[in-house]
């Protein structure tokens, strides 16, 4: 039997049911894996005692036939999710010490289904970043390193810690959140599967808000089937979230193997951007080939407003964030600095509590909403956003799924883009359009760069059609046969 930490969620569920091992053993092995991978800084809070207690209960439930869908499965939870009585800070100093007296809907669903929390995963502060370098706990480190240099690479972000935990076998799965690519891009950088569901599919209640009209929870896993298993539990209407949709949740596992014969796959010309790395282009071509060979119908499509997506996103998301983050004022929870008067207390608390990137976005957001600038920035961005959504709507008249690279690069060096926010923002260029349109997207590990770093391909689907991107993703996963580990170079396929 392979190491328990190498199992997929699906295999672990089956092994637990067959009593090949216990939930306690599974959890203990993962606790050790978390300890062993300490230097990757994937976890910012470790809840081992809770995990052990929960795994004992899971074994009992499995024995008594009361096991939930994810009974005994050890997972990591992005620090953006509020977890009752467990430190939840969005990796920001401003929320230092905050222990929510409530549990987010999505994590509650996971615990109700028997999942075991190992701890809270590192992330960019308030989910603002694409490299997990803005965390107040320091960067999370990608377990993958370029074969030759051994240089430390970023895991992507903002759900960097989640992707690292899953890639480094320090969790069977993790929750992430995606606002402009924060699940898909780190999944791509770390060689794992990352699924952003349709906006409104999972409840946002209890998830610390970054940009409310974009934020969406989703799973990070090591297989498409695991993503489907996680989504089965995480998805669903929540009356506490007015933007969640009261729509039936299908069984995402059921139709995974329906294949891609006759599936119409759109390839958007606007995604062939200048200066794209040749290995990304090659991977994309390879993906197209795989689909074509399996009977998929490849169609060139146009999404004409794609080039406006990034600037649009960097107006809307900061605008919402500037308002969402106003509550961190030092008055009721988290960090408070003393000041000479009220304004001084606000200024000092927020100056000390927020990191540079958060401050930058709060300022951008405040600016674009200001009197005299609102129409030119925010309002115009909303109009462009509708155009972008319409591009996709039109495209989906002709195709069932859209195939693109997840990111224009593989994982870059730690610290590389930290001083260059624009180049950092550019890393979201392929993930942001689907976010603005509220569409589901999944990143599938599909190959390695010449230096041996994982690269992902993205599948974008119609609203609430996670089923199709999951089955197409399952096909892609099989075709790519991405079975390599960060720790071993054997079997790495060079493009």
């Amino acid at each position, binding site marked *: 039997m392979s190491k328990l930490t190498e199992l997929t969620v699906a295999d672990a569920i089956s092994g637990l049911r067959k009593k090949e091992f216990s939930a306690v053993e599974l959890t203990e092995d993962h606790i050790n894996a978390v300890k062993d991978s300490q230097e990757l800084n994937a976890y910012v809070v470790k809840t081992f005692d809770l995990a052990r207690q929960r795994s004992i209960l899971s074994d009992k439930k499995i024995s008594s036939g009361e096991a939930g869908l994810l009974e005994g499965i050890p997972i990591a939870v992005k620090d953006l999710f509020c977890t009752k009585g467990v430190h939840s800070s969005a990796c920001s100093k401003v929320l230092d010490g905050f222990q929510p007296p409530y549990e987010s809907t999505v994590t509650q669903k996971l615990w109700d289904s028997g999942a075991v929390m190992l701890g809270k995963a590192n992330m960019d502060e308030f989910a603002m970043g694409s490299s997990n370098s803005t965390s107040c706990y320091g960067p999370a480190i990608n377990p993958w390193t370029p074969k030759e240099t051994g240089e430390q690479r970023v895991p992507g972000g903002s759900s960097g810690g989640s992707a690292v935990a899953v890639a480094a076998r320090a969790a069977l799965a993790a929750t992430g959140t995606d606002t402009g690519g924060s699940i898909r891009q780190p999944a791509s950088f770390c060689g794992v599967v990352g699924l952003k569901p349709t906006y409104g599919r999972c409840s946002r209640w209890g998830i610390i808000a970054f940009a*409310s009209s974009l934020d969406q929870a989703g799973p990070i896993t090591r297989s498409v089937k695991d993503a489907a298993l996680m989504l089965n539990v995480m998805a669903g209407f929540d009356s506490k*979230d007015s*933007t969640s949709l009261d729509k039936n949740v299908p069984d995402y596992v059921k139709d995974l193997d329906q294949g891609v014969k006759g599936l119409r796959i759109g390839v958007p010309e606007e995604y062939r951007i200048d200066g794209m790395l040749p290995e990304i282009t090659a991977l994309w071509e390879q993906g197209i080939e795989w689909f074509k060979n399996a009977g998929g119908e490849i169609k060139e499509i146009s999404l004409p407003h794609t080039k406006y997506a990034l600037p649009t996103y960097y107006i809307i998301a900061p605008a919402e964030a500037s*308002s969402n983050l106003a509550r961190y004022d030092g008055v*009721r*929870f988290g960090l408070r600095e003393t000041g000479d008067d009220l304004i001084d207390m606000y200024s000092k608390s927020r100056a000390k509590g927020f990191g540079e990137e958060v401050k930058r976005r709060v300022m951008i957001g405040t600016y674009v909403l200001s009197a005299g600038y609102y129409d030119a920035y925010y309002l115009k961005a909303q109009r462009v956003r509708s155009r972008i959504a319409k591009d996709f709507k039109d495209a989906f008249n002709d195709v069932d799924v859209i195939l693109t690279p997840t990111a224009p690069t593989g994982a870059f060096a730690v610290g590389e883009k930290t001083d260059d926010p624009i180049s950092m923002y550019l890393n979201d260029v392929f993930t942001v359009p689907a976010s603005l349109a509220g569409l589901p997207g999944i990143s599938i590990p599909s190959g390695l760069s010449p230096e041996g770093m994982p690269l992902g391909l993205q599948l974008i689907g119609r609203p609430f059609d996670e089923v199709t991107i999951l089955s197409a993703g399952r096909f892609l996963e099989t075709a790519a046969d991405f079975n390599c580990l960060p720790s071993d170079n054997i079997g790495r396929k060079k493009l």
Partner: protein
Amino acid sequence: MTYCIQGNSGQFELVVGLEVHAQVKSKAKLFSGAPTEYGAEPNTQVSFIDAGMPGMLPVINEVAIEQAVRTGLALNAKINLTSIFDRKNYFYPDLPCGYQISQYLDPIVGEGTVEIDLKDGSSRNIGIERLHLEMDAGKSIHDLRPNVTHVDLNRSGIALMEIVSKPDMRSPEEAGAYLRKLRTILRYVGSCDGNMEQGSMRCDVNVSVRRPGEKYGTRCEIKNVNSVRFVMRAIEYESKRQVDIIEEGNSVDQETRLFDSSKGETRTMRSKEEAHDYRYFPDPDLLPLKIEQDWVNEIKNSLPELPDVLKKRFIKQYSLTPYDAEVLVSEQSSAMFFETVAHGRDGKLAANWVTGEFFGALNKANLNIVNSPITAHQLGGLIDRVSDGTLSVRLAKEVFEFMFLSGSDADVVIEEKGLKQVTDVDEIHTIIDKILSSNTEKVEEFRNGKVKLMGWFVGQVMKESQGKANPAAVNKALKEKLT
């Protein structure tokens, strides 16, 4: 009879518009399930949403929407089937999220009208600009300890309707009448209890002055005035202040002012330059609010008869004076009380009793219709005894006093206290005979032409009967005996 402010250089016209914040009658807050009871211990009616905790999301309370629609319909206003909640961003310790959820460009209710009645008997229409829903902030308490501000979030998130009038009022009296009328309407439809002392209705007053025929002058906004009387006084003070400024050759600065009720003055709160940039934008946590016309119609059909309609009906059906009708419809409970009393009886008589003895007694006892010791049926029973001659008006008033004290029926009081009017002719004759025989000189005088003495005889008989004799019967019998 136009109101004007007499300056040294001529007359000025006053222009007033009111923004009324009315607390929506609802058990829960606008976006959370927390209770809204008045006067609870600080910070005991606060949900995680009201406290702006991370990850919390607002969910609109349907009752509040229904109340806004009810109110809008009662204001003859346009109901917008799609409306949008926006965030109004500013920092203050009693505003936990750092923004207030309000409606900015797309309110739930559009233009409407309120008809006001003035003392001279005329009436005017005051335009309503809009009505929108918004959440209240908490309360900052600065005077509990020096250098420390306490925050009570009980009010945070309570649903308010902001009702904005057009700048249609031209005198303090009109502003007062508008405010009272609005309060009456809100109480009729049950959307707000209109209690200004408890802060469930607050008023921002916009005042400007101009010489007749000129365009609108620069306005000042007086914040948070909390009684009808203060609103009227604030307007008087503020308009004179503005006239003085203009007459000195200066111009009025647009600013926000406060009314100091102890001094009867307004003073600067913040100038236009200090005005906030609220950075309004649609709240991404809430989808646009869509309601169905069918639902609006249903609400419309469930509305009670509104004061204007009721007043007209009272005048017509019961031949009431406009004044009495106005008094009776000013509270729905008095109108209902009156209608019960008037049912099957003389309307005018009923109105006299309700607005006269009954209201007087309530006032004196510091009671209101809801906790009145006697019911409308009981008052009606008393009036019946006047109509059938059992009681004289004077006796009836005496009976009423006993009824009011004991809560008993008129018949019980009449029986117990023996206050029944004497209409028995024989009994009256006996008394008259007694009076006449002991005042023979007076009888002589009368018969010699001093007819004025009739009144004196009536008085003596009434006195002898302890007021119970039926005055008409006494008059008749006396005339017979004396002539």
